[in-house]
């Protein structure tokens, strides 16, 4: 059976069918991500003082991943243009570049950024025990400066027993009175050698940096996870279009393959678009 309007345009819409299909799909995607972003806004504006973390993500790595997605957005549109100009060889290379960028993005996310969080530990201190840990929190100075109080001690969990945690402190808790720690650093500072002992009785909640840690990490993992699935989906489609099987379509009708690349490119640009908002919201603000 011949599927109509894959190349020629439908007289009533003036478009080939896949074009309308992808835009309707992207409209539903806007609602999907819109729901998650609105949940993020709601959680963030309602967060109690000191509970919305800043500077926990690796900004240089996030910036690099942003650049990689942007470059892949350029290469996919160049791949489409190459097909339009009937340069299959160039198309093949641009597609390979796009696939590589997508895979690098996913690898950085799944093999580096996420696991690093899974290894990080945080203990929220009970409100009445905050004064006891003043040396790690520096709240007296923060109060004077009108800053939100620190209520969490973070770092690497060294060891724990039934009564206490031993934590190799993050610089922010190792030097809490240093004004340089009031703002996030561009290059993340490594965990210090300074060990703090925190009594479990003083801890409200202690967890690794998992979705259960806070509303921040819950929304971070949900949104970047869903975004990552989109990147994976895009990469799989691109691989299909890059394999020899697609050359057959090209040989039969080059416009057909060009249109396929155009609609999957539209999807890819949408994925890039989502990241353009995810990156500042989670990494920078």
């Amino acid at each position, binding site marked *: 059976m011949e599927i109509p309007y894959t190349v020629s345009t439908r007289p009533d819409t*003036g478009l080939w069918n896949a074009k309308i299909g992808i835009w309707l799909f*992207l409209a539903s995607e806007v*609602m999907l991500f819109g729901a998650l972003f609105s949940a993020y806004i709601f959680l963030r504006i309602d967060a109690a003082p000191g509970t919305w973390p800043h500077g926990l993500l690796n900004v240089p790595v996030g910036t690099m991943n942003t650049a990689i997605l942007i470059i892949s957005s350029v290469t996919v549109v160049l791949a489409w243009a190459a097909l339009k100009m009937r340069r299959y060889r160039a198309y093949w290379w641009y597609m390979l570049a796009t696939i590589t960028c997508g895979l690098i993005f996913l690898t950085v996310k799944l093999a580096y950024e996420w696991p690093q969080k899974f290894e990080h530990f945080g203990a929220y201190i009970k409100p009445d025990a905050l004064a006891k840990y003043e040396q790690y929190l520096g709240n007296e100075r923060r109060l004077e400066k009108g800053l939100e109080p620190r209520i969490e001690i973070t770092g690497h969990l060294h060891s724990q027993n039934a009564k206490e945690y031993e934590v190799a402190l993050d610089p922010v808790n190792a030097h809490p009175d240093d004004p340089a720690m009031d703002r996030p650093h561009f290059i993340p500072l490594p965990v210090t050698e300074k060990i703090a002992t925190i009594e479990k009785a003083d801890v409200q909640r202690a967890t690794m940096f998992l979705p259960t840690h806070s509303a921040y990490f819950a929304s971070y993992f949900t949104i970047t996870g869903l975004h990552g699935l989109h990147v994976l989906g895009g990469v799989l489609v691109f691989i299909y279009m890059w394999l020899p099987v697609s050359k057959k379509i090209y040989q039969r009708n080059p416009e057909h393959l060009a249109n396929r690349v155009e609609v999957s490119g539209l999807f890819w640009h949408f994925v890039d678009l989502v990241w353009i*908002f995810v990156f500042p919201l989670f990494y920078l*603000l």
Partner: protein
Amino acid sequence: MNNPPDISQDSKEYEEYAHGIQKHVRGYLMVGALLLTFTVITVALSYVHFGTDKANIAIAMLVATIKAGAVAVFMHLAAERRLIYRILIFTGFFVLGLFWLILLAWYDYPVFH
């Protein structure tokens, strides 16, 4: 280049068409460079304190919206068919409605504020 005509067998016409695409390619490269520049700007601005956190968020979102506009060039949105714009208007309406509901829900809990 929205819905370009099927490439003509006439070699002269094809040359013209390929030349048109080639011009677009230059545009795409420039938009890519612009997006990379704005990424650096976004990162740099986040280390400047604009008085309140809200101001910083507003500025970052403004830069992100400019970047989104640039991505629209890749999506050929400058010259699409009317039907696509209609789909987008509906989408915009509903997504803004969604954000509006969140805003209303926020005012619903005076106990938190």
